[in-house]
């Protein structure tokens, strides 16, 4: 088939091709994702929540195999929770990102997981780390992932500017995801957004008929 990240063995269960995105701003991060989980051509879940809390102020965006990413996220949130209790302090986003990297790199042959870790901590403020398939770890001010990301690299490169406010980041993310969902068959449903700052978490949903619209032939 034409799917980019599919291997036949993965097809039978909830496999996800996706669009996920995260943007840093001064004081926090904005993360977003579409909501489609597919098994082959059937949409198994059209309202998936791919933005998973790992800790109070740390989230991860999941793309790739649903089973693998759920298992990894569960394992990392356990490890991070334990670490945070030992420290008696909220954990660093970099720590969470490294835990993801260690797991994704060690089991790189067995796993199919592209993860973006984003959150806020006291030391470095809002941070976005990307852990693509293979287990690389790199910090980026803006990061996209999943099969739908290919369609929006140009949009991201042209529209991103540093020093955006939270509202600008939210609009930027919503626009980018809407464009990707329009073009990528494996992405769709609703747009889930979250803004993570020191004071807390604001989650929102943009339903299908409320998505930003662009030129369509």
């Amino acid at each position: 088939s034409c799917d980019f990240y599919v291997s036949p063995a993965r097809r039978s269960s909830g496999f996800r091709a996706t669009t996920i995105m995260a943007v840093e701003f001064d004081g926090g991060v904005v993360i977003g994702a579409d909501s489609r989980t597919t098994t082959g051509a059937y949409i198994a879940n059209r309202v998936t929540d791919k933005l998973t809390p790992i800790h109070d102020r740390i989230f991860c965006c999941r793309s790739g195999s649903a089973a693998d990413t759920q298992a990894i996220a569960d394992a990392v949130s356990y490890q991070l929770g334990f670490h945070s209790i030992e420290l008696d302090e909220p954990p660093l986003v970099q720590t969470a990102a490294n835990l993801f990297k260690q797991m994704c790199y060690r089991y790189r042959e067995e796993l199919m997981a592209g993860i973006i870790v984003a959150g806020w901590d006291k030391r470095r403020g809002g941070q976005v780390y990307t852990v693509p398939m293979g287990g690389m770890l790199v910090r980026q001010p803006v990061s996209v992932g999943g099969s739908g990301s290919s369609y929006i690299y140009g949009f991201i490169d042209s529209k991103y500017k540093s020093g955006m406010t939270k509202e600008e980041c939210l609009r930027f993310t919503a626009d980018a995801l809407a464009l990707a969902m329009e073009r990528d068959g494996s992405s769709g449903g609703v747009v889930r957004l979250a803004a993570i700052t020191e004071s807390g978490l604001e989650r929102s949903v943009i339903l299908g008929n409320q998505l930003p619209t662009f030129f369509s032939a």
Partner: protein
Amino acid sequence: MAAVSVCRPQCGGFSFENCKRNTLLEANVAKLGCSLPPARKTGTTICGVVYKDGVVLGADTRATEGMVVADKNCSKIHYISPNIYCCGAGTAADTEMTTQLISSNLELHSLSTNRLPRVATANRMLKQMLFRYQGYIGAALVLGGVDCNGPHLYSIYPHGSTDKLPYVTMGSGSLAAMAVFEDRFKPNMEEEEAKQLVRDAIAAGIFNDLGSGSNIDLCVITKGKVDYLRPHDEANKKGVRLEEHVGAAETGDYKYKHGTTGVLTKQVTTLQLEVMDESVQTMDTS
């Protein structure tokens, strides 16, 4: 990870490509000198719905072994704990053993915590076990129950991914059942409405999917009460053979009364037999 072979763009939904070929074959069966193959049946329809007071789980009752129905009335809704039940699709042995294992572990856990088990706990145990076996345990489950946090419904795939949703379907008849749900589901339905919806969804699977059949089982779970309705609806009752000639009730007897068939002519021919030799052979009874 890219596929090396030339690929065709994947179109979604149902594929009707074989319909033209099938009509052509049906028309020319006699000429081709072959017979149409019988329908091959594999699979299941299971589903669940969250309503105002709890969850309703539903399942068909056909178990197939290749092309043969192995069990016309098998039970696909498995007990996990007094407040949690689980429907299973896929390999029957896998769903049976997996649910029994988790049920046993959950009972021990419940005794240890001195609390009624939670659906999320059962979900965690099931997904971690299925992920550990990397999809080789072919169990696709619909897990539902009511605990201290209210009613919950999960769908669990063989590779270990789970989705928490207000309505789910699994099995080969899942598309037919999901069509019914997407049309008529509303949040906070009444019990009768929810039962009717699940019944109709399973019926859609039974009558439109070759892999599902027989009766409809329902399981209604509310806080403090479980109604295991088996069968809830005998959608496929076996026909009664009518023996008008032998009276009202059927006896399974193939005898017909004299005069059923009209006799036109009668001809008796005696056979000329001569006794040649008469001997007795004793049986060896030692």
